[in-house]
């Protein structure tokens, strides 16, 4: 009798551990270093073009202090999940260096579980590496199709529908 009670306790313990791990898995199985990598404009350009021939790409430059960025961020995360087979999302935090931890905390809260980037270096080469059109105002979004052709880019925040409309155009749906 004692033995079966002990077995039940041990099993319960393992089940508890197993289920609490499930809760932690979402957005947690990537290290801080991988979740938010430092990158210059040139490195970002390379990262974006690495998806050419493979997936459409949505690039979004955001910052924790930028209200419209925070508002639109969950839309992009949702759409990445919805069109995961055909679309990759490259988030780039333009937070000041001292706010890196805030950016990481926000990414974890949004369940981002893929590599994103943290802007390093001067503003001008960073802006020019991402777009000739962009003035530097945040947020900034750029969507490319699988062949690397520009489908849309814009400054200011956007609604879910606008993101989805351009994503669909990029993945030809």
């Amino acid at each position: 009798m004692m033995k079966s009670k002990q077995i039940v306790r041990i099993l319960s313990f393992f089940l508890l551990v197993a289920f609490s791990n499930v809760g932690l898995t979402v957005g947690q199985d990537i290290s801080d270093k991988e979740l938010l990598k430092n990158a210059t404009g040139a490195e970002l350009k390379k990262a974006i073009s690495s998806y050419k021939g493979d997936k459409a790409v949505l690039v979004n430059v955001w910052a924790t202090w930028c209200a419209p960025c925070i508002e639109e961020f969950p839309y992009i995360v949702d759409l990445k999940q919805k069109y995961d087979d055909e679309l990759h999302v490259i988030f780039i935090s333009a937070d000041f260096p001292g706010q890196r931890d805030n950016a990481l905390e926000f990414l974890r809260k949004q369940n981002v579980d893929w590599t994103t980037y943290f802007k390093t270096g001067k503003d001008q080469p960073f802006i020019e590496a991402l777009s000739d059109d962009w003035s530097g105002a945040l947020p900034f979004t750029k969507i490319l199709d699988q062949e690397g052709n520009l489908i849309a880019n814009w400054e200011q925040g956007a609604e879910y529908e606008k993101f989805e409309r351009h994503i669909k155009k990029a993945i030809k749906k």
Partner: protein
Amino acid sequence: MNAMNLHKSLIVLLILSAAGLLAFLPVEDNFDDRIEIGAKAPLTDLEVTDVSGEVLTLEEVAGENGLLVNFSCNTCPWVEAWEDRYNPISKMADENGIGVIMLNPNAAIRDDGESMEDMQARAKSSDYNFYYALDEGAKMAEAFGATRTPDIFLFNSDMKLVYTGAIDDNAKSAQAVDQHYLKDAIQKLVAGKEIDPKTTKALGCTIKWPK
């Protein structure tokens, strides 16, 4: 081909034509037309109200050697980062016969930190030594093609644009600046020398346009 089939073919043809036309539509963007180097300052006779209550126009603010317009606000961390350079640059411009005005275009969030009362408080706490006026309906920002805060436009004595863009290349630290774009532009303007670069870019907060 019977009438039914002809009807279907026409529909298919129409859909294909529409799809073909869509492919040639321009890439969607929202990049407003920024005034170009050499262009005259717009809306120079439009009245704006300064935090002191004084009603001004850009024509009146301009000095004998030109005018410096900075689109700025109260709630942007980039403004905060660059703010320690506002007063020294304004002093330098003033000493060189260039009038200075800062315009707040954040019309959509006047009830959220960008009201005239908020501007008055900011001008007092930061001890601004230049005009800080409300850009009602962001009319000035729209006419200039400004996009962010801070955003700089420097005009010569003919009110023609000679420099636009960033204050310098390091928002976070005045001590770590490599390129003093705006200071250099002011010095060269007054000395009658060629300004280079004439346009620069920097990160900033989007202007909160009226809805």
